[in-house]
């Protein structure tokens, strides 16, 4: 029983990180109608930077209590690469969606070598940094406190994003732009600004997720292309553009992976794509429909 609880805890943790990246993907797709393949690269950027940050933090003897807030802050600061990249993407807004997809693919290729240049080709990891806050045990069941904090942060982000989109004025502008760009523009919404903000927000979600995951997992050159494809599965299962969908999709993918790694390791990834295909065939809009809210 407790073995199963351990699996579940692992799955939920993975889902929490997945949700953050997928939420960024959803936001950008919902408003800008661009499938941003580079969101996995933002995630990897956050992870690599997180490694560097923790390295410095432990070298200068920074209190471990500042590690988690520090990671979140560095994730948010990294989001500042969003606006210049959005500026480049802006040049192909009028074109066919395949061009936009390809441009983000070009970013994926370029980012991969930027990581290689700065952080080297070998995977980088921290020795059990996730144990800094200790573990909670109950019988055989144990979960690092750090993982619980990350899950809490993801839930808080979900709630915050939901409230931002549903309740605030700017959230309404975003949803209006997602719904009908031309009409929003005619009514005086600065769509350019909105696009820039949305893309940056998407980038911040990715970099923060990467920074948060790094105490528990290694940062490697392949993580960007591996993770974006998983985040893509999440958004397809949940429904493109839907925040609630990202949440459910992330939980589904996280739990399926966790369970199948233990019971049917061959089916770990296979199961996810079977579900993705089934969803696309039977409910192409995903489990949760269409709009952003």
């Amino acid at each position, binding site marked *: 029983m407790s073995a199963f609880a351990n699996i579940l805890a692992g799955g939920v943790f993975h889902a929490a990180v997945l949700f953050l990246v997928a939420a960024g993907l959803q936001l950008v797709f919902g408003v800008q109608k661009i*499938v941003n*393949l580079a969101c996995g690269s933002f995630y990897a950027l956050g992870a690599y930077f997180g490694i560097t940050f923790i390295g410095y933090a432990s070298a200068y003897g920074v209190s471990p209590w500042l590690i988690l807030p520090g990671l979140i802050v560095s994730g948010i600061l990294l989001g500042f690469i969003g606006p210049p990249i959005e500026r*480049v993407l802006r*040049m*192909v807004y009028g*074109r066919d*969606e*395949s*061009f936009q*997809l*390809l*441009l983000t*693919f*070009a*970013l*994926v*290729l*370029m980012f*991969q*070598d*930027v990581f*290689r*240049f700065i952080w080297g080709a070998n995977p980088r990891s921290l020795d059990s940094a996730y144990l800094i806050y200790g573990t909670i045990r109950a019988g055989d069941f144990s979960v690092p406190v750090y993982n619980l904090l990350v899950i809490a942060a993801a839930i808080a982000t979900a709630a915050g994003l939901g409230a931002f989109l549903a309740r605030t004025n700017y959230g309404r502008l975003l949803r209006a732009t997602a719904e009908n760009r031309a009409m929003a523009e005619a009514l005086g919404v600065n769509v350019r600004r909105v696009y820039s903000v949305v893309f940056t927000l998407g980038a911040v979600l990715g970099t923060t997720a990467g920074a948060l995951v790094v105490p528990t997992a290694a940062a490697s050159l392949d993580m960007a*292309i591996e993770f974006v*494809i998983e985040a*893509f*599965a999440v958004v*397809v299962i949940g429904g*493109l553009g839907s925040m609630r969908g990202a949440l459910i999709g992330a939980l589904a993918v996280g739990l399926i992976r966790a369970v199948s790694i233990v019971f049917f*390791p*061959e*089916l*770990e*990834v*296979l199961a996810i*794509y*079977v579900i*993705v*295909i089934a969803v*696309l*065939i039977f409910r*192409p809009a995903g489990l949760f429909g269409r709009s952003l809210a």
Partner: protein
Amino acid sequence: MKATQAALFAVAGTGALALLPLAVPPFYAGLMIPFFGYAIALLGFNLLFGYTGLLSFGHAMFLGFGAYGAAVMSGVLGVNSFELVLLAVMVGSAAVALPVGLLCVRYIGIFFGMLTLAFGMLFHSFLFKFYYVTGGDSGMRVARMKILGLEFSHYNKIEFLAGPFYYYCLALLVVAGLVMWRVVHSPFGLHLRAIRDNALKAEYLGVRVYRMRLAAFIISAAFGAAGGAILGFRVGLADPELVYWTQSGQLVFMAVLGGFANFFGPIIGALTFTILQDQLQSLTQYWRFILGAILALIVIGLPEGIAGFVRKMWRRLVRRPA
């Protein structure tokens, strides 16, 4: 493009490619084999993308069918004739493409792309995880086979690739190009273009949109498998990397680089990409960055690719009165 112009270009191109092994060391001629594989696969890919307007982001799956099909046939079943292997993987790939296409071509645009991507990743994870069948990430060996029933046993592998196999692949590309030229200039090809430009209108005019898209999907799958078999034969290995989604992205890259609006665009793209990648790899370990930057520049500045650019320059140069 007028037929005479195209024929001239094709003959000149084929001639240049035929003379190449005489001019460069065997090692470099052997490097051209992947170009032939990609070019044949891209002819099929572009029937779907350039002519039908469907962007497949899982097309590497068909390369994988070709490479793994060749591995299974040559290694497990002991088939020794490359022609037989080619035929079998093309038929097999088309047979798999039928049910997959039935599901995929119900959608267009981003949904079509995602569904093909998902199928590609499904196949990739099968190859990767069921290692006792597929060899996992170390792949499966593709044995050396006879071409045209000839052994060429006195050639070593490099000489074989640069000599007989080079011309063999060139001939395959010419045949594939001729077949595809016929396909896109047949009424069927016209149907596809009508569907690309306005599916609703085409349907109203009596084009069976769904069936035509499916046919294009199946044909492109067969071409993809033929290309994959060549790629697998050259390395002597079918490995799951060939099926990963980044490989599908690379196929799209080549098509856009050469210019997917032009019949020869994808072939030009495959040639440019192959040479560029090889040169960059020997120059710097950061070749992906440069390739990415080139892709970005093409997407932003030259959406019609190299073929479109050359055409525009040519028109400007000749400047015939309209």
